[in-house]
Structures are given as structure tokens and as C-alpha cells.
């Protein structure tokens, strides 16, 4: 049984002029425990909305979302909040650390919503987690005194301290330079693997996306599997510009950690340097036109 399963999930909002804006359409996605999935897409394509639905911060307007085989629609608001706290860890682009609190207090914060040992030993657990992300000597430092990379490491420690089953990372390297971003992703990958947590990252950065076992592209609210090689570089925009109309279709199935990682039958992703179709995949789903977006739906 999959950990997460989205079937035909859609999300729309009503605009002030009573028109309905479709942010997500017919999303099908299955994520297994411990899997690493990345989703790329331009701003306003609904990436964050999808992540919010996955993380139970938002609910779909159509389709079905199964968590451990249970439709989330059956869960009460309180139960959804509890599952959000126990099963999901969020890493945000802007870190979203609590200002005025030390690194330790930031990592302790999610444990205030835990029960049992996690609650009563929250400071010890938080300190251990900060040690794991290499900030054992910065426990009492406030976020404003930390570098961007350090802040994101605190955010990662905070996301992982309750040992979630799924880590949802929204542009985790978006506010970091390339080298620091790479270090942060290494850390996120490592700890997620050690904890056995699934990692779902949405990003503009193809290098970040390429780390995942399965990659998807979200365009115009439609999710399509693609294949991005580990040698990919540059931004999505640049890649789209060089490739014309889209990215190379992939399987959304194989990768270093994911299901079929060593399955020789899985289609191979194209790698950087392939002049024919460098990293570029066409969405599996046909283009849905280019209706003007009235806002940032993500």
C-alpha cells in the first residue's frame, strides 16, 4: 500500500468575479514510504498548492487523497492536524523560523504538539537533532545571527525532529547560493534516508530535482512525470528556453532511492550532454493551453 495516493485531485478557487480558477487538475501521484520525489514547475503552476494538499494544510476540491489508504476527507479537522504533526515535516524556502527564539527553541516548537516521550524530552531530542545537522554548537543562537545555510539547517532539524514519514520541502534551496543549497540538500537527503522518511521537494532548480528518484513537472495545474539527469544544471526557465516547448517525458518511477531504482526495465532519464534532447521532457499530459493566470496560485 502506498503512503500517499492522489487520484484525479483538483483544486480550484472562486475569483472575485465569480469565475473559477483551476489551480490543479487531475493530479495522480503515488508516493511510497522512504521515496524521494521532486516536482518542478514555474511560479504560479500550483506547486505550493499541491504541497499544501499533500501536507494536509489544504483540501482538494475534487479527486481523492488517500493517506495510508484512508481518504483524508474522512478525517476531522483535528485528526488532520494530528496527522500533519506526526506524519509530515515542512521545509520552507524562506526557512520560516520563529523569530526571537533560539535554534533550540525553534526545533523544540513542533514537539510542543507531540505526546509522550517526544513532548517530555523535547529539549533533548531537539538538541540531538541540531547536533545531527551540524549545529550542536549553535543551540542558543537566534536565527538572525545564523547564515542562510545554517537557518535552513535549523529548519530541516525542525522538520525532522518528530521523525515524520514525509518531508515536504518547498523550494528548500531557493534562498541559498548554489554551494550552500547543495550542502543543504545533501543533508536533507541523508537524514531523510536515515529516518526512512519520504521526501517530496518542489523546486525550480533542476540540480535539486535531479536528486530525486522520480521527477515530475507541474505545468498549468497538470502533473507529468519527467526525467532529469544528475548532470542537469541551470534553471527550469533556461532549460525550457533551450528546449522549446517542454521537458523530456520520464517515468516518474525510477531513481537512486525510489521504487525500481535498480530496475533495468525502467526507462532511463536523459542526461546533460545529450544534444538531442538535453534534460528536456514533454509533459505526458497534453498541453492545457495557455490561459492567462490571474495570480500566483502556488
Amino acid at each position: 500500500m502506498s503512503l500517499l495516493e492522489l487520484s484525479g485531485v483538483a483544486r480550484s478557487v472562486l475569483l472575485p468575479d465569480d469565475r473559477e480558477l483551476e489551480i490543479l487538475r487531475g493530479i495522480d501521484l503515488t508516493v511510497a514510504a522512504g521515496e524521494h520525489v521532486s516536482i518542478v514547475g514555474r511560479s504560479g503552476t500550483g506547486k505550493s498548492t499541491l504541497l499544501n494538499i499533500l501536507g494536509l494544510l489544504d483540501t482538494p476540491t475534487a479527486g481523492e487523497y488517500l493517506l495510508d489508504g484512508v481518504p483524508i476527507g474522512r478525517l476531522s479537522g483535528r485528526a488532520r492536524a494530528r496527522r500533519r504533526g506526526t506524519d509530515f515535516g515542512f521545509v520552507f524556502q524562506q526557512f520560516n523560523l520563529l523569530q526571537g527564539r533560539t535554534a533550540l527553541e525553534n526545533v523544540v516548537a513542533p514537539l510542543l504538539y507531540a505526546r509522550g516521550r517526544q513532548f517530555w524530552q523535547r529539549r533533548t531530542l531537539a538538541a540531538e537533532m541540531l547536533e545531527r545537522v551540524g549545529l550542536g554548537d549553535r543551540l542558543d543562537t537566534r536565527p538572525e545571527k545564523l547564515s542562510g545555510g545554517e537557518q535552513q539547517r535549523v529548519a530541516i532539524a525542525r522538520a525532522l525532529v518528530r521523525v515524520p514519514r514525509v518531508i515536504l520541502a518547498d523550494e528548500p534551496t531557493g534562498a541559498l547560493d548554489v554551494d550552500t543549497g547543495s550542502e543543504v540538500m545533501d543533508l536533507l537527503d541523508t537524514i531523510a534516508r536515515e529516518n526512512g522518511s519520504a521526501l517530496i521537494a518542489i523546486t525550480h532548480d533542476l540540480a535539486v530535482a535531479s536528486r530525486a528518484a522520480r521527477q515530475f513537472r507541474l505545468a498549468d495545474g497538470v502533473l507529468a512525470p519527467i526525467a532529469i539527469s544528475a548532470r542537469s544544471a541551470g534553471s527550469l526557465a533556461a532549460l525550457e528556453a533551450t528546449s522549446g516547448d517542454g521537458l523530456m517525458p520520464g517515468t516518474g518511477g525510477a531513481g537512486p532511492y525510489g521504487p525500481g531504482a535498480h530496475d533495468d526495465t525502467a526507462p532511463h532519464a536523459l542526461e546533460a550532454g545529450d544534444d538531442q534532447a538535453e534534460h528536456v521532457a514533454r509533459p505526458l499530459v497534453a498541453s492545457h493551453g495557455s490561459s492567462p493566470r490571474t495570480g500566483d496560485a502556488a
Partner: protein
Amino acid sequence: MTGVVGAVLEAWDELRVHKVRVLLALVGVAVAVCAITAISAAGEMLRQVSAEQNDRWNGRAATLQVSAWPTGEGGSVMPAPEEYERVFDEVVERYDVSYSSMLRNAPAPVRFPDGTREVYTTGVDVDWATMHRFEVASGRWFVDGDEDRLAPALVVNEAFLDALGGVPVAEHPTVTIGGDNPVVATVVGAFPNDWPDAEPQAYVLVSAQSAWVTPESLEMTGPPTLELWVPDALAEDLVAAIQRDVAGALSGVEANVYRSDAASYSVVDGAIRWVVLGVSVIALLLGGLGLVNIALVTVRYRIREIGIRRSFGASSGRIFFSVMMESVVATTVAGVLGVTVAVVALHNVPLDALMGSAVQDAPGFPFSAAVTGMLAAVGIGALAGLLPALVAVRVKVIDAIRY
């Protein structure tokens, strides 16, 4: 359990991080709580002091004063002291009154070492001390056997003792009272002066007073009166009945029975209480309004933080409870501060000076006032936290995170 503890810890953490803002917001609440506690405590203490004084001067609830003055019509004269005594005894017996005392003021020439001085002696019965919560500072009050003493017993004030040369009661000082037929009286007890520079004063049993009471002095001070300590509920009925009985038993007098204790003035007391309470509530509401104002601004400022906490698994109920708890914890801290300041302030209030006379049992800080202050603090915290908590719950999580 962990949910409540977590919410309180979260609230405390929030206050700690934003202590300057919180302190500013809480100054008003702390001052208001201090005011409400101090006012209510002061009222309670003054009421207690006042009750003590009232009991001492006017008797406990319900004390009835019975007097019978000659009308002067048809050449009526004041009945003999024995007549009064007989009629008063009949009243006490008829209505089975447990505590009663005759009362007779009479001047007496007292021979002090520095000369004879006219001292007002108050003739009472043994029960009088109980009826008036009267306690001696040294020695003792009268006992039943004192009526048979050849040397009458006296309970005097400090001024009397000083005039005697400062002889302590333990040494049983004696003094000669009376003009033509003087008697030697023994001081058995002493009480503090009612006010600074008080004149010598003495209590004596009514029966012993006859040694120096003359018809002339009675003309001057009036006839004896009777004090009865009766159940509150029966007081009104007894007033009418006793008045009728005394008027019937003594001819040529106008019997007068009235209630003298302070409880009969409870209407005034109640009015003062309501005024004090009203002022306090207004002060507290003003403090609470300031808190609501700042809390609302703060919630707006903290929308992103609320979103982040939702991502940690905080339910809307938990967010509501946490934001409300911030307010409650804050006002509780302010309440503790306010009550402490009120306790310290009132502890140092010179009640003697305030009341204009000595207070025997200086009342402690009323616990009820501290409880009232704390309840008011917690209550205003919950009230002030309600609106920001509702605003916090209505925050859209997704917007909050992107804020």
C-alpha cells in the same frame, strides 16, 4: 494533559519572547488589578476595623438598647434604681436573653496621688465584655464573684493607670473612690486608651457603682439603660414587645427600645461596596481594553507564525487555546504583581491614623481580596484573549505561511 501543558508553555514562551510588548500591555492590567485588590482589601479591612469599633461602642448584631426616661408630665419623677433593676430583670427573664447588661454612667471622685479627679465610670454587668467584643490588654475582665467583693473591682484604661503612677495591673493597684463614704477599689484589668491623650476611664460592675452614685449624679447622667444581645431575626419583634413591657411596668416614663449595632446601617455599607466595586470594574475593563488592542495588533503581526504552528500540527482549537492562554498567562502574571503590590501597600497603611483611634486587632490582608484580584486578572485575560483568539483561528493557514 500534554496539550494543556504545551499550550501553557507555548503561551509563556510567547510572553518571554515579546516581554517588552507584553510588559507595556500589562502595565494597565497590573495597575487595575492592584487597584481592585487594594480597594477591595482596604474596604474589607476598614469594614473589619469599623465593625470592631462598632461592636465595641454599639454592641454586636443585634444589640437592643432599652431606656426609660421620666416624661415629666404630671410631676413624674425618675424611678428608683432598684425599680429599673427589677423591670430590666423581668425583661431578661421573660425573653430568655442569654447576654444582657445594665449600663450606667456615673462620675466618681477618684483620689489619684496628684489629687482627686472626676472620672467617668461606666457601670456594666459581666456580659458586657462579650457583647462588645471587649478585651483587656492586661489583667482580667469582671467575673461573677466580683459582685461580692468589698473592694469593688475596676477595669481601667492606661491613662487611669498612669495617673495612679504607672503601677502594673499585676501588682493589684488600689484607688480610693467617693466623697463622704469613700471605698477602696482594686484595679483588676486594664485596656488601651481609645485615643491619644485620653482621660482616665474605668469600668465597674453596676452593683458596685452604688457606693458612689448619688441621686444628684443620676439626675445629671440619666437613668440606667439595659443592653440586650438578641438574635438578629428576632430583633424587630422584640423592640416592640420590650418597649410595651417596660412602658407598662414603669409609670411616668417614656420607654424607648432601639437597635444600636452597626448591622442596622448595612444599607449604607452595601451602597459603598457597590460604588467601590463599580469603580474597580471600570478600572479593570480599561486595562483589559488596552490588552485587547495590543493583542489584536500582535495577532496580525504573528499571522505567519500561526501558519507555521499549524504546519506543526496545531489544530484550530489548539491555536485558539494558545492565543487565549497567552492573554490569560499574561494577565495572571500581572495579577500576581498587582496583588503583591496591593498587599505590600496595604501592609504599610497606618490603620490607626486612618481610623483616628487605636485598632486592637489590626486586620491582616483579606484573602478574599487577593482571590478577587486574581480572579479578575484571569477573567479579564480570558475576555481580552477571546477576540484575538477568534482572529487567529480565522487565519487561512496557506496565506499565513506565505505572509
